[in-house]
């Protein structure tokens, strides 16, 4: 098992050296990247919107439940605590974990299907660097669009929290907004999350692509690769979250 793990790391590294080469035709690269932004990014907006709004609402309710017993704690602290939770962890990490499921399985299954139907062999026979042609646009699309999704998720999470707090009578909308602005530090509350989102985007794109690109067999193996892509991406995100949190906050 340990040997397999290190062989896998080596194979992943070799694949990445093939991916990060100059594209044969920039025109086709741009076209593929736009297509991937649509497929992997824009098509994920819906799930990110729903998830973020409800996540913000739930965090606000939970925080209010914890803090409301003590009359000495001002209510805008509910908003401050919500902001910290949303911008530091929930938006960058939880949304990326959800995207690892949606986008990761899509990448692995599409590449896996291309592998077992000999479409990748067809590219190789033509003299195309198939890893570069197929995987680089996916990684670039992820790197470009994931931070935008995370920014949007932060905003919607905070909005959802303020709306839920107001509707349930826990904290007035204006008070939430004031609480969000109190002791707001751009690096800690925005840049930190964006740095994480870029790292997670690379993990989702490259780990899922590795799982799909290296499939051997048929439909069953494509399904297994798709599952592996999600599991490996989630594990890598959690491990890198630990490292990044330590590096960036300490």
């Amino acid at each position, binding site marked *: 098992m340990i040997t397999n793990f290190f062989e896998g790391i080596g194979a992943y590294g070799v694949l990445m050296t093939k991916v990060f080469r100059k594209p044969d035709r920039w025109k086709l690269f741009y076209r593929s990247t736009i297509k991937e932004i649509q497929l992997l990014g824009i098509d994920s907006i819906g799930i990110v919107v729903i998830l973020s709004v409800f996540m913000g609402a739930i965090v606000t309710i939970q925080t209010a439940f914890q803090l409301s017993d003590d009359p000495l704690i001002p209510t805008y602290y509910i908003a401050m605590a919500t902001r910290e939770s949303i911008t530091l962890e929930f938006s960058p990490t939880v949304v990326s974990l959800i995207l690892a499921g949606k986008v990761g399985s899509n990448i692995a299954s599409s590449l896996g299907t291309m592998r077992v139907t000999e479409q990748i062999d067809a590219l190789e*026979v033509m003299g195309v660097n198939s890893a570069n042609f197929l995987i680089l646009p996916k990684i670039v699309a992820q790197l470009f669009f994931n931070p935008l999704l995370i920014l949007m998720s932060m905003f919607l999470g905070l909005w959802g929290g303020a709306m839920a707090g107001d509707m349930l009578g826990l904290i007035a909308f204006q008070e939430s907004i004031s609480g969000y602005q109190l002791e707001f530090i751009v690096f800690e509350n925005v840049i930190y999350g964006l740095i994480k989102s870029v790292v997670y985007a690379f993990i989702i794109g490259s780990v899922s692509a590795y799982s799909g690109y290296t499939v051997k067999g048929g439909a069953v193996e494509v399904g297994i690769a798709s599952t592996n892509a999600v599991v490996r991406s989630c594990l890598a995100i959690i491990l890198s979250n630990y490292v990044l949190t330590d590096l960036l906050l300490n």
Partner: protein
Amino acid sequence: MIQVKGIHKSFEDNHVLKGVDVDFHRGETNLIIGSSGSGKTVFLKTILGLHQPDQGQIIYDGEVLSEMSKQRAKKLRQEIGMLFQGGALFDSMTVAQNIRFPLEMFSEMTEHQMDERVKFVMNRVRLEGADSKFPSEISGGMQKRVSIARAISMSPKYLFCDEPNSGLDPETAIVIDQLIHEITHEFGMTTIVNTHDMNSVLEIGDHVIFMKGGHKVWEGNSSEVLKSTNQDVEEYVFKSKLFKQVRQALR
């Protein structure tokens, strides 16, 4: 012309190719036949350069494949057309986009020239009107024709076909065989076809080699194959009832 000299290929303990020598001539449809497990597919992929041979040489018009520079090997790939068993069409692209892909990737043609070339090859393989359809929307026979059109769009010098008739009805199979034969002669290509189909052998086999256990066992042409006295060839060719009757009729 493609020359294969003393090719050996093993996968771990499995010695698949055991010293194959053969010359494939330009303008001829060269067929490789043999039972499953005889090494045909590994042989084809080794000639293509998808597998590295353990021993021996593959020579494309005087140039040894293993001694070519990276640039030359890449250029050679653009001179090769390949028809895969399942078609291997890009399912996210339409028929026209599939055929146009190699041109966009490697040629310096203008948009108009590419359009003209796509139209020409589509007409050549009788695919008029299918340009905006996706591979999933067309029949197996049409998919094979699209695959042929894509393979010849760059005017290749070498055409490789892996089981071009698998999954096709006998009538469509003959159409595909004839198409491969016609374009081989028309464009002067060196064509190598990997097949199980004895009808293909008789229809288009300008040059036939029979493989068994990683060896080339027999070599000849379509008219000689029915008269061969080689026991392995006889066993393979006259396995079916139809061909047994043909043999009786010949005698």
